């Protein structure tokens, strides 16, 4: 039996051949995508695809443990670490196409081509007509076979691996650690400093006060209707993501919402017109007046009362 398992064969099953030709194409496309995509996120996703395909190849080659480890460690941990760093560094950072060395890309591609031809020629010249297969080696279980080797023949390398991993963990912590040069101010000290300097002693105004929305990017309005910039988060202010709350912009938004409501057929049974048996046209008029009014109402606190009035007018 064991001699039969160890007997050298020269071809694999047809199913494996079909799987190979389909998945190898995917793997090569993923690898090419990794080096050709301009954005780092796309590169990372292409590489993740290639690694999953490689995991399937490991399984097909009888390396069951490595196939699972490939998915867990590579696609699960390493690629996600890459994605985290891409997010830290900036998703939008695309590679520049400016060449610092003239003709370097073409030379590099040429070098790669030559290297590939060299490698393939080397493999082609080797006499690899038959193979043994892992039937005998895996007969006691793949994981058991690997464990036997790791804890006997390769036990020293395994121990060194532990030292390497702990060094890498400490190294990553040392490299990314930043020492704090001064103590962080406590809340009480911050409050005392505010009073001493005399700028903005009370809390900052809240966003969205007296406005049409209470979203954080909508500034609160001062009594005269001008937006209070202090009420918006400094980060949003710095990015220029403060929403425009002038009367014109709000009127445009209201008109847009009214048009979309009419398009979706919601105006006939809208909240304001629901109580009346009148036709869709009357309800629409009330709705339009209401929207228009609330747009104007953003300028002052009295806006909340107007919808009722306008409905009465529309009747």
């Amino acid at each position: 039996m064991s001699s039969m398992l160890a007997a050298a064969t020269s071809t694999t099953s047809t199913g494996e051949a079909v799987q190979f030709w389909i998945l190898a194409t995917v793997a090569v496309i993923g690898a090419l995508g990794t080096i050709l995509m301009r954005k780092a996120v796309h590169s990372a996703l292409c590489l993740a695809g290639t690694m999953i395909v490689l995991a399937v190849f490991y399984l097909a080659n009888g390396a069951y443990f490595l196939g699972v480890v490939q998915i867990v460690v590579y696609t699960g941990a390493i690629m996600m670490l890459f994605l985290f760093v891409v997010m830290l560094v900036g998703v939008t950072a695309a590679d520049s196409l400016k060449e610092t060395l003239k003709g370097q890309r073409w030379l590099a591609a040429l070098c790669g081509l030559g290297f590939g031809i060299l490698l393939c020629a080397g493999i082609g010249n080797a006499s690899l007509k038959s193979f043994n297969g892992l039937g005998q080696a895996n007969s006691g279980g793949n994981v058991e076979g690997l464990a036997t080797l790791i804890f006997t023949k390769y036990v020293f390398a395994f121990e060194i691996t532990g030292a390497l991993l702990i060094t890498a963990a400490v190294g990553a912590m040392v490299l990314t650690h930043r020492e704090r040069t001064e103590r962080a101010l406590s809340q009480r000290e911050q409050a005392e400093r505010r009073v001493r300097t005399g700028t903005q002693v009370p809390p900052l105004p809240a966003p969205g006060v007296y406005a049409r929305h209470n979203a954080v990017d909508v500034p609160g309005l001062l009594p005269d209707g001008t937006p209070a910039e202090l009420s918006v988060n400094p980060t949003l202010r710095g990015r220029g993501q403060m929403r425009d709350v002038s009367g014109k912009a709000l009127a445009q938004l209201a008109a847009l919402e009214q048009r979309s409501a009419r398009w979706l057929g919601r105006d006939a049974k809208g909240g304001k017109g629901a109580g009346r048996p009148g036709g869709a046209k009357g309800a629409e008029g009330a709705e339009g007046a209401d929207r228009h009014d609330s747009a104007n109402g953003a300028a002052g606190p009295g806006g909340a009362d107007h919808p009722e009035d306008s409905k009465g007018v529309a009747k």
Partner: protein
Amino acid sequence: MNPVNYLYLAALLFTIGAAGVLIRRNAIVLFMCVELMLNACNLAFVTFSRMHGNLDGQIIAFFTMVVAAAEVVVGLAIIVSVFRARHSASVDDASLMKL
């Protein structure tokens, strides 16, 4: 099909990874290309393990994975600290050893 085809695929992936290391400028993408090369080596190891009928190749591939994980951790930490100092992840910008 002979398992030699896996070796050709590994050679192709290794070549693509090497070309990527030469062509790209973004340090993160460079690292991904290095990972691709390591994976290609692993595929070759696993295939050789099957052709020879013993598990030593798989053990070596396993150790390669461990070393690759350690390398990625340290390398990405270096990239993050360089990015903090220079606000760029391009390898062309980091032309000096000191900041």
